[in-house]
């Protein structure tokens, strides 16, 4: 296992150092204000927009700012004086030409590596059997999807994601209240775990427990955001496209509502506890979202560890999960966004700004939007089949 771990770290370091998505620089530039003593990043960025070289709002929730900013306070002295000016550099070419970029990218992605490895060990705790433990460890560390999501697209969603994995470890042990707190904490990074509140409510044994389980994440989230509530916070984070994107499709809202009503009206739960199986609903929730929303590629990380748990528990589904992974990657790659593909290689050369994207290549022979629609339909069909199979099993986890 040590050898596997070394190889896993080596592969992750390679991707970390050579592939660059500009989001990592943007949110780390914003987080750099923590070490300068800025507490409320939302109002600070809005008030100082004119004077700042990068004008973007901070679209994440407060814990992301404190996690990234806190880490930066530790590593900045080790990275030298050029680091802060690199973060603040608005020139798209000079940023990638900076000789320090390899070091900066490795340092900024290092927390992802630590959490990523920690998740591999956490996932092992879902199983008793030694063989299954080894399997889930390998599946997590050696699936290409999460490596690319985390280290090429610099996916900061790993912070809330590890908390959701911890929450489900609690749920597995029937500790629903700590799980609710963990989901609330996760929403302090990104809002998506709050989508699960209706199902937490249904999982409660009696009315009091139901209300406690549903209110806990909300209260935790409320306490986290309380010091930041302002117009700037509302506009930057709470109603940003990144937060509200899930509900831009009516079909997603319909699908999620149907899932909820199925839980209320049809699902009788397992025979012993008469409670709904939260794991199934968590997986189904995200598969429905990916089926009908024009999703961001980083959202895929939300469900990745849970699909890997299914792949280990039910090996028959591995190929379906792998196929869904390929499809769900193919869709955002076809978006008209250079940073989904060719521009990730700008560290090698800015000439990739002139390389055609998959969108422009396909455009020459076929309508890329039609192809997107076809792929999305296939993904939706596969996801719904997966949801059906997960529910048919009753107790996957």
């Amino acid at each position, binding site marked *: 296992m040590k050898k596997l771990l070394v190889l896993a770290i080596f592969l992750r370091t390679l991707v970390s150092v*050579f*592939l660059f998505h500009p989001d990592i620089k943007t949110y780390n530039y914003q987080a750099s204000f923590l070490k300068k003593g800025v507490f409320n990043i939302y109002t600070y960025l809005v008030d100082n927009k004119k004077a700042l070289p990068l004008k973007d709002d901070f679209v994440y929730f407060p814990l992301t700012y404190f996690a990234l900013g806190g880490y930066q306070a530790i590593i900045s002295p080790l990275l030298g004086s050029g680091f802060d000016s690199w973060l603040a550099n608005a020139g798209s070419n000079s940023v990638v030409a900076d*000789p320090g970029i*390899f070091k900066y990218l490795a340092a900024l992605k290092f927390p992802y590596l630590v959490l990523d490895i920690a998740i591999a060990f956490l996932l092992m705790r879902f199983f008793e059997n030694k063989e299954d433990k080894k399997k889930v460890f390998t599946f997590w560390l*050696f*699936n*290409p999807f999460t490596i690319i999501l985390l280290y090429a697209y610099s996916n900061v969603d790993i912070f809330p994601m590890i908390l959701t994995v911890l929450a489900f470890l609690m749920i597995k042990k029937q500790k629903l209240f700590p799980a609710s707190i963990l989901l609330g904490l996760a929403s302090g990074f990104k809002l998506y775990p709050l989508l699960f509140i209706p199902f937490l409510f249904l999982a409660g044994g009696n009315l009091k427990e139901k209300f406690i389980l549903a209110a806990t994440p909300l209260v935790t989230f409320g306490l986290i955001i309380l010091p930041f509530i302002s117009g700037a916070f509302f506009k930057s984070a709470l109603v940003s496209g990144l937060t509200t994107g899930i509900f831009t499709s009516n079909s997603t809202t319909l699908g999620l509502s149907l899932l909820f009503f199925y839980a209320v009206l049809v699902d009788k739960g397992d025979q012993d506890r008469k409670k709904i199986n939260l794991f199934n609903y968590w997986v189904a929730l995200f598969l429905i979202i990916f089926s009908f929303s024009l999703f961001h590629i980083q959202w895929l990380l939300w469900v990745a560890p849970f699909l890997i748990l299914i792949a280990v528990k039910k090996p028959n589904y591995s190929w379906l999960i792998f196929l869904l992974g390929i499809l769900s990657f193919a869709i955002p790659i076809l978006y008209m966004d250079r940073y989904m593909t060719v521009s990730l290689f700008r560290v*090698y050369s800015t*000439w*990739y700004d002139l390389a055609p994207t998959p969108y422009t290549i396909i455009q020459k022979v076929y309508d890329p939007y039609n192809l997107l629609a076809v792929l999305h339909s296939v993904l939706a069909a596969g996801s719904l089949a997966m949801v059906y199979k997960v529910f048919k099993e009753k107790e996957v986890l």
Partner: protein
Amino acid sequence: MKKLIWFTTISILFLVFIAPAVLALGISLVPGDSQPGYNPDLRLSIYKDRDVTQRFISQDANLSAIGTSIRNPNLKNKQDIILALFDDRMNLLRTVTINGQNVEDGSLVKFVFDPIPDSNDETYIFTLASPDAGPEETIEVFVVDMPGWIQQYTYDQKVYPGGLPMVLYFKPVSKFAVIKDIYSNLFSRLLHLNFQKTS
């Protein structure tokens, strides 16, 4: 599980070491010097017979495109925007016409033409005009006062030093040359980093 480990290892090594070469096969133009920074408040309006003439020196052979930032406020200009390229004796070499409706406000617009093989160190002149546009459909270009290969520009019959913040693009000698340049540039930067550490 062994298959998965092999598959992922090979996929990641491919992504980092081979994919850049594969993607580079799609690069048909390479830029010369990067676009100079410019003051967004220094602009020239172009419409009807109000055009701009720019004199510059090509940095390489196979000059194939000229790019510059163009403002098209509220995307009002839907007329032709014409770039005519001359040699230094004002012999017309190339003409490129694009339509204003394809010009996003403030975007870097590339005028692509057939390559000029012996363009290295040669002086060229181009005019940029939108003769069918009225004052309501004006487009704007930026100007910088920088000596060097962007030599001088003429606007409203007056000559000024510097000119449009532009990028020249050249057709590469071969696909292999592009790949070689990309990797040698990357490795020289990595070696430079190593050198910095040891010194």
